[in-house]
């Protein structure tokens, strides 16, 4: 039976050193416990580095898990930083060094998009110590100056998701003129028609003194009726009768009109 000695360790002497504008600033955090309020560092550029160090006192062996997770914990997007360890007597000095240019583009991209700080979470655990002594806490948060970082080449990974709705935009139908204006011009044209009749009357060319007599009158009437008939057939075609119906009646009317017409025109000879 193995006797387990319950050993506790204490993480002490936390120091956070960061460079900003080529100046080195140090924050002493001291002892650490869980639920520590993270220190916020602002305006870091791509050339800066962060050094995070602490001491584990009263403890001999190296804990199995010492890691600093840097990234966005809500998104589960973090990279681990390995520490360099120095063992001295009973204490261990752990040092993490992070150059900001090593932060992967995905973390920069999402931190910039969601406007969230990049946090550093410290985990220290060992299988020979009780769970209450484990350390798992956010130690610092960084707000970067994203203009100095280059992450334009990062593209978000494609995932299955619904795409935006598209509704086809129809071209607007052609604009037609207002009926009022159209009616005015219709009136003008009809007026011109009546004007023609009026001028004909005023020039004295309406006399009706050459109406044919007897058989020729019938021929004349037939001729005029066939012409009017043709125009009516054409009007019926415009209003929707099929072309075949139109051709049928036109051919019948045509035969009739041609016969009557030639008879009439022959009768008047060159006196037209």
């Amino acid at each position, binding site marked *: 039976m193995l006797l387990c000695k319950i050993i506790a360790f204490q993480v002490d002497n936390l120091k956070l050193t960061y460079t900003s504008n080529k100046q080195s600033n140090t924050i002493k955090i001291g002892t650490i416990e869980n639920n520590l309020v993270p220190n916020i560092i602002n305006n870091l550029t791509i050339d800066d580095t962060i050094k995070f160090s602490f001491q584990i006192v009263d403890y001999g062996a190296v804990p199995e898990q010492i890691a600093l997770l840097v990234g966005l914990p809500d998104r589960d997007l973090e990279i681990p930083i390995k520490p360099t360890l120095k063992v001295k007597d009973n204490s261990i000095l752990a040092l993490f060094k992070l150059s900001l240019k090593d932060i992967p583009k995905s973390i920069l991209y999402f931190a910039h998009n969601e406007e969230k700080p990049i946090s550093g979470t410290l985990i220290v655990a060992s299988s020979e110590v009780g769970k209450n002594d484990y350390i798992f806490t956010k130690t610092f948060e960084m707000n970067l100056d994203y203009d100095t970082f280059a992450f334009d080449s990062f593209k978000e990974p494609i995932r299955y998701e619904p795409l935006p709705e598209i509704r086809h935009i129809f071209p607007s139908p052609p604009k037609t003129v207002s009926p009022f204006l159209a009616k005015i011009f219709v009136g*003008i044209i009809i007026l011109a028609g009546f004007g023609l009749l009026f001028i004909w009357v005023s020039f004295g060319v309406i006399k009706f003194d050459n109406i044919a007599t007897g058989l020729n009158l019938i021929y004349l009437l037939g001729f005029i009726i066939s012409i009017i008939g043709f125009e009516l057939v054409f009007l019926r075609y415009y209003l929707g009768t099929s072309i075949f119906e139109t051709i049928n009646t036109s051919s019948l009317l045509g035969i009739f009109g041609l016969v009557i017409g030639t008879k009439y*025109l022959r009768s008047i000879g060159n006196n037209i």
Partner: protein
Amino acid sequence: MAANTSSANFIKTSTNATNKKSNSIWNDFQDVYRVSMKSYWDALDKYPKLKLIDIFCLFLVIIGVIQFAFLCLIRDNFPFNAFLSGFIICVGQFALLISFRMQYLNPFPGIPKNRAFGEFIVASLILHFICLHFIN
């Protein structure tokens, strides 16, 4: 009688014109215009039926111009087929009338006047059908 006096006047004015050699082109043009107008009115007097034809032609031009003015007013030839149909019926009817008038005054060899009239009517009917079809 009246014709003799008018021709005498004509000879008088022409001799006057030839005397002035340094006359400008404008005067020549005025003379030509006067001569052609005179022959026109004389023809009209001889064949009054030409009045029917000429006034009809004039009003066809007027109706064509009205349609074109409508087009220019609204700056849109939207049913272009309709505009063409209305315009072509005026222009076509005008052309057919003029060709009949030509044959009326000086008949073509081998085509008597009444046959010209018959052809004019047939051609006009075809034109009307086409224009009604084209305006849809």
